[in-house]
């Protein structure tokens, strides 16, 4: 009777602390799990359990430290032209620290996907912009996740934690006098303007939970829930000052407010199974329900107002732009199947060579873009392979094991053609397709 309160208390503590995810949805976490197509929710025991299934932490055999690197090149095209979608490259790593509390197996885990060139990426868009809406901002995020897991009975493990994403809220203000240049007399550099910038990088949290059920030595089942996260970009700008036109000083006031859904991590529910078909052959299958229908819109809501105190018939002010609102993108939920196969090839008495392969199919959640919006996307077939070595008891310094895993991931996005209903559409017909090629390696140290 005392076990359940402990588990609940652990999870509450975690929620009040924090941990995190995002790009790992697309490109995986850790070379072993990525090579298996992410079909590891029922078999994961290393640091990547923080993402794939937190309860797997409680099934780890000992303390485990991992560090690695991943690089994904995005060769995505619109109408045959490179869309210049940035690559994703990040340091990955984590820890699994098992123990026991009141004789109950217990584990703490932490995982991180840390981009090595930027911490976050923000970009708003106009409705008429054709853009790879799922691939330019969403993978460019930090993923940090911390979790706790317990194993109250031999056949059951429960885990959960919190993931964090970065969100931006900012404002800038300009005050002073702007000089209109007069040839030979004054330049714009004579202006006296003061700038004030106030920006926050704040955390967005979302929880994840998972259970693993182990009915026998060859079968594992898993159920994982990852909650939704929305990252909004809020910008407030204000210009107050005077435009100095030599003979005339004109007070001016300009305000801009913009809110954009910069990235959206959909709610997910994963059902997974792992079968040890042979002593050295394991097959994993995951099916993930992804709640893309909850995506509000990547289009910014903005309003602006220009107020210039001047009353000259020859002076014209541009009209204030009309406020823009969100357009329901009509994204659709989808089921994502994942399949992974792993064979551990014995090389020597204490040395194994794991061979891995995986496949994922992600149907695009983006509906046909025949109307005003032009969100580029395509179905995605992801093939992955991986290998490495597992060296058991390499020496006195490391009595556990030394593991080195690599992976190559190739995502194929078959070209999807969009034919617009309106021949006067600002964007026009377009085709979208391409490839994503990723590779990575992870070095792990296992302690008994």
């Amino acid at each position, binding site marked *: 009777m005392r076990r359940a309160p402990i588990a609940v208390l652990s999870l509450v503590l975690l929620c009040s602390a924090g941990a995190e995810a995002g790009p790992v949805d697309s490109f995986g976490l850790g070379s072993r799990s990525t090579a298996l197509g992410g079909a590891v929710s029922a078999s994961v025991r290393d640091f990547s359990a923080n993402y794939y299934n937190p309860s797997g932490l409680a099934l780890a055999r000992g303390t485990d430290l991992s560090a690695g690197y991943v690089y994904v090149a995005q060769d995505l095209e*619109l*109408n045959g*032209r490179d*869309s*210049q*979608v*940035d690559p994703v490259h990040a340091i990955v790593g984590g820890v699994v620290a098992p123990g026991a509390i009141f004789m109950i197996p217990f584990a703490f885990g932490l995982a991180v996907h840390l981009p090595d060139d*930027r*911490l*976050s*990426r*923000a*970009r708003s*868009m*106009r409705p*008429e*912009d*054709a*853009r790879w809406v799922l691939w*330019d901002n969403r993978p*460019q995020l930090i993923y940090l996740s911390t979790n706790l897991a317990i194993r109250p009975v031999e056949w059951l493990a429960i885990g959960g934690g919190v993931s964090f994403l*970065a969100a*931006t809220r*900012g404002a800038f203000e300009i005050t002073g006098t702007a000089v209109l240049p007069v040839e030979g007399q004054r330049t714009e550099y004579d202006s006296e303007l*003061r*700038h*004030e*910038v*106030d*920006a926050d*990088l704040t955390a967005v949290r979302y929880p994840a939970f998972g259970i693993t059920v182990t009915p026998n030595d060859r079968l594992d089942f898993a159920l994982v829930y990852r909650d939704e996260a929305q990252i909004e*970009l809020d910008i407030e700008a204000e210009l107050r000052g005077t435009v100095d036109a030599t003979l005339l000083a004109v007070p001016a006031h300009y305000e801009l407010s913009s809110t954009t859904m910069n990235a959206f991590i959909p709610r997910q529910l994963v059902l997974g199974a792992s079968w040890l078909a042979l002593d050295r052959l394991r097959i994993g299958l995951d099916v993930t329900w992804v709640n893309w229908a909850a995506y509000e819109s990547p289009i910014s809501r903005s309003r602006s107002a220009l107020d210039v105190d001047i009353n000259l*018939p*020859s*002076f*014209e002010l*541009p*009209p204030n732009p*009309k406020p823009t609102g969100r357009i329901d993108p009509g994204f659709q939920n989808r089921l994502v199947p994942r399949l992974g196969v792993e064979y551990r090839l014995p090389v020597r008495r204490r040395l194994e060579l794991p061979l891995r392969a995986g496949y994922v199919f992600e149907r695009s959640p983006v509906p046909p873009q025949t109307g*005003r919006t032009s969100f580029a996307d395509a179905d995605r077939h992801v093939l992955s392979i991986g290998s490495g070595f597992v060296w058991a008891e390499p020496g006195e310094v490391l009595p556990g094991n030394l593991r080195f895993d690599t992976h190559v991931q190739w995502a194929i996005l078959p070209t999807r*053609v969009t*034919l*617009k209903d*309106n*021949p*006067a*559409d*600002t*964007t*026009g*017909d*377009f*085709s979208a397709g391409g490839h994503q090629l990723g590779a990575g390696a992870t070095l792990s140290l296992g302690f008994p």
Partner: protein
Amino acid sequence: MITRRSVVLTGLVMGCATLATEAGDIDAVRPNAGAGPFRPITESELGAAGAPGVLRQKAAASRFRQASALALGEGQPGRVALYIVAEQAGVHGIYRFVAADARSFVEPDPPGAVLVPSEGWEGAELAQPEVVRVGGEIWLYYAAAGGIGLARSPDGISFSKQPGPVLAAEPGSSWEAGEPPRSPGFVELGADDFRLFYAAAGRIGEARSTDGVSWQRDPEPVLEPAPLAGEPLFDSLQVSDPEPELAASAQGRRITRVYYAGQGAESSGIGLAARFGDSGALQRALAPSLTTSRGPSDPALVRFGDLALMYFTQKAGASAAQAYPVIALALAPATLTLPPALPNP
């Protein structure tokens, strides 16, 4: 006051944390970027004061208006001939101006008008020229009191008029209200398949011809003023001045585009309407292609590769003294910048 150091530090933090480099010019991957929206050119692009007006010398007296453009050479942009309605030295007519950089127009070339009213059906003024190259000839459609006329030329300078209007008022038309058609806009869809878009009674109609002289009207207008619903639109009162062109979508679908002048209750602008294929009503774009506060009208389009130049007529300024018309220039994709203007000869 915020210190420079704090601003720099805050900027660095903000830049490192959230503000990343843009992926690039979004218009570079927008298939229809060349169809608009258009941006008026700047003074640095014009190389002179008065932008986007391209022909401001003596504009008050000459009343330059209603241009039609003809590309004379390759380039980005290349040589352009503008056929403009004007009064020069007291002579009303259609004048030809040439600029090697598509914007530095100075004097008529030739000095005199290339076309003046001379026929009884024309009345006192010619208007709204539409110049096109058909085969080895230059055809010039124009509006006059009795309808739309045609003049042809081997060199674009010496024109011979077709006797009588090629498209006159049609009392039997259900929507033209007996008005003579105006604002001719010509497009050649294929061999011996010509279309003439025209304005009448605040709407735009279409006629078909195999020789450019004998025209058969379509019974219904192809574009009407925008329905009055919600907020007032720039073209809710009338549409006119059609400027058609043939285009193809990025997927190879044939599109007939028609730029037009729209007039609304509170604003005006240049709009774009289009259709797939060669027949049927036009569907308007969701937003105007060009808006200014000076009543833009009479669009004339010329293309140089991916660059589209649109000449249009608008008031010289906002004051009553600047109510005379000028020819102005805009470009698309709006993210492009014109190379430096060539010095005037």
